[in-house]
């Protein structure tokens, strides 16, 4: 790997990180606006035109707030918790193909940070580490509410990770690869995996909601029982990291769903566009349109459905999703072999 390529990757990484952070900031704004719309209110509209500077005001406020670390807390773990949550949220995007490639200054720049052939496994692995951010933070706070929030979140995330892994197997069987790039390439035009794997997609979507701790699976921060859940003791930017990581996770899991099931940057009629630069830009736009569609559905669900009870949540995860995912896998295999 030569230095020019490393520099190119570094620039791409910084651009993606910046875009991710700005999008996460605006998702908090979007969430409040959408909630306001659903509840027939106006939502934030005072800071800047149409309230558009609100997320920067919020972020700045978090940055300038006093850090409070309770004296009974484990100081270093208390800091490592939110740091882990944020790092994990920002590194998943490394294997997502945002587009094919684009010509910049005569160089053909691939719009994917790392094209590794275990992309899907990498995503699953990083998702598993996500539990640590919440568990370490909740345990280190040394507060009963935080501990309960953290334990609930951990048990929920690991339970849904199982069905998530099982749901993905059917897609991997169809595409015969674990590389996200190859998977997206195979869904050229409108040949998307969702048409062949509707049940698998539904299972994956439900699990993604649970992995992101989003409603109706947001028991970790169930305010009526647990005050704020695992981040009850947090203040300043450490609280900010927990909040932002939730929105970044939403954005990245939407990107994974768009790549695996909705054809990523593919769209019908893409072969008719001759100019490669226009095509690349359109592909990136289509990818982001799919991502924002999923993010909107996440928010829509949050402001529509009530929260599950904990035993209902675990029953759904273990007794419904896992058997369904196994049936989906076996049926997919049998149908594919019969059609061969």
């Amino acid at each position: 790997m030569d230095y020019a390529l490393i520099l190119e990757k570094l620039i791409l990484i910084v651009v993606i990180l910046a875009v991710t952070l700005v999008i996460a900031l605006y998702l908090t704004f979007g969430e409040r606006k959408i909630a306001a719309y659903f509840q027939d209110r106006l939502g934030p509209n005072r800071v800047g035109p149409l309230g558009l500077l609100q997320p920067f005001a919020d972020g700045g406020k978090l940055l300038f707030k006093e850090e409070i670390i309770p004296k009974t807390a484990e100081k270093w773990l208390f800091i490592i918790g939110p740091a882990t949550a944020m790092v994990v949220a920002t590194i998943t995007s490394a294997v997502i193909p945002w587009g094919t490639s684009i010509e910049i200054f005569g160089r053909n720049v691939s719009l994917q940070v790392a094209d590794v052939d275990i992309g899907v496994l990498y995503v699953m692995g990083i998702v598993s580490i996500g539990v640590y951010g919440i568990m370490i933070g909740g345990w280190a706070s040394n507060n009963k509410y935080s501990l309960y929030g953290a334990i609930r979140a951990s048990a929920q995330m690991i339970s849904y990770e199982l069905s998530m892994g099982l749901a993905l197997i059917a897609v991997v069987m169809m595409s015969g690869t674990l590389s996200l790039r190859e998977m997206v390439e195979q869904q050229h035009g409108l040949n998307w995996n969702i048409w062949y794997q509707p049940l698998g997609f539904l299972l994956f979507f439900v699990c993604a909601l649970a992995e992101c701790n989003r409603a109706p699976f947001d028991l970790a921060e169930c305010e009526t029982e647990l005050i704020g859940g695992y981040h009850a003791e947090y203040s300043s930017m450490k609280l900010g990291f927990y909040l932002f990581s939730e929105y970044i996770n939403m954005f990245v899991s939407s990107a994974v769903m768009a790549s695996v099931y909705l054809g990523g940057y593919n769209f019908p009629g893409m072969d008719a566009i001759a100019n490669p630069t226009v095509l690349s830009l359109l592909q990136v736009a289509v990818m982001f349109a799919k991502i924002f569609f999923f993010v909107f559905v996440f928010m829509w669900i949050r402001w529509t459905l009530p929260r599950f009870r904990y035993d209902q949540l675990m029953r759904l995860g273990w007794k419904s999703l896992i058997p369904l995912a196994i049936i989906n896998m076996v049926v997919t295999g049998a149908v594919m072999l019969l059609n061969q």
Partner: protein
Amino acid sequence: MLDLLNLRTNMSTPESYIPILLQMGVAVGFVVLTLSISHLLGPSRKTAKKEDNFECGIEIKGDARFPVSVKYFLSAILFVLFDVEVIFFYPYAVNFKSMGWDGFMAVLAFVSIFLMGFLYVWKRGALEWEK
């Protein structure tokens, strides 16, 4: 098994993982920098009350180092058990098309073992949360 591995023509080399390491470095750098800036910018006026644990109107008794329901640990153990089995499906799924019916039958046997274990913990009540 070897010729199955050779079917994959575009194996990534160790070098393809360098960008992932770079991204991890950038992410850690960003987090450390932001936390330090916020530490320096924020005021620091500590009082005894501020550093107490959060409570909700009732004085705190003891700390959060107490035993919690064993159900959570049971879920964690079952997760480890089943997740290892799920990972075994992945190499098969990648090579699914080349293995045909023979491979499918072998995996059905594996799935039935998986299901036997799953039904066992189900019937033993390990998945019940109401009791």
